[in-house]
């Protein structure tokens, strides 16, 4: 199936550590990708998106992601994480027949 996949299901980091969450896609054609975040007890919300243009996109709360076509990747990064970044992160495609990533549970130790 055409999909995106996330390889890190659980990540535990200390505050101030750098973060990189992997996301790979497996389909051709137009690639539109998102990262969504779900903080404990809250709704899914958009973190950032890539449609076209600059492959390095910046989102809310200091997050960024780089679209690398040659690697079929759209990894999420943050230089220095905070305890409040504890959440579940989903890589998602735009397109109804495309499958979301399974999510990465990120726990930041204070």
């Amino acid at each position, binding site marked *: 199936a055409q999909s995106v996949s996330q390889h890190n299901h659980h990540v535990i980091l200390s505050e101030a550590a750098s973060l990189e969450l992997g996301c790979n896609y497996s389909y051709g054609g137009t690639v539109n990708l998102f990262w969504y975040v779900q903080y404990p007890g809250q*709704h899914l919300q958009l973190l950032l998106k890539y449609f076209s243009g600059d492959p390095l996109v910046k989102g809310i709360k200091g997050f960024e992601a780089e679209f690398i076509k040659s690697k079929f990747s759209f990894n999420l990064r943050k230089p220095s994480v905070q305890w409040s970044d504890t959440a579940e992160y*989903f890589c*998602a495609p*735009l397109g*109804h027949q495309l*499958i979301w990533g399974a999510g990465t549970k990120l726990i930041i130790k204070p």
Partner: protein
Amino acid sequence: DAGVTQSPTHLIKTRGQQVTLRCSPISGHKSVSWYQQVLGQGPQFIFQYYEKEERGRGNFPDRFSARQFPNYSSELNVNALLLGDSALYLCASSFLQGSEKLFFGSGTQLSVL
């Protein structure tokens, strides 16, 4: 402004029963999508409705159906429930059909016993 609201928040049914889940989109949003999220997996697309017409359907059996009303609210119906239908059902709204940003509700947790 109110966000996307879903009801009920939790539901327990037995196999073979039917269930109706409800969603009210953000005011002004004309597109509603439904997703199923099984524990440990990402959301899986079920339906999209825009301007009261079905605009997309995921890989789900015909037991799943939906509709959108003139006020843009939506219902998801599941007939002949199976144990495997136990999941969190998410509704998301957006202003346009192909909108790049979805606004999610908090979901309905369905347990089938």
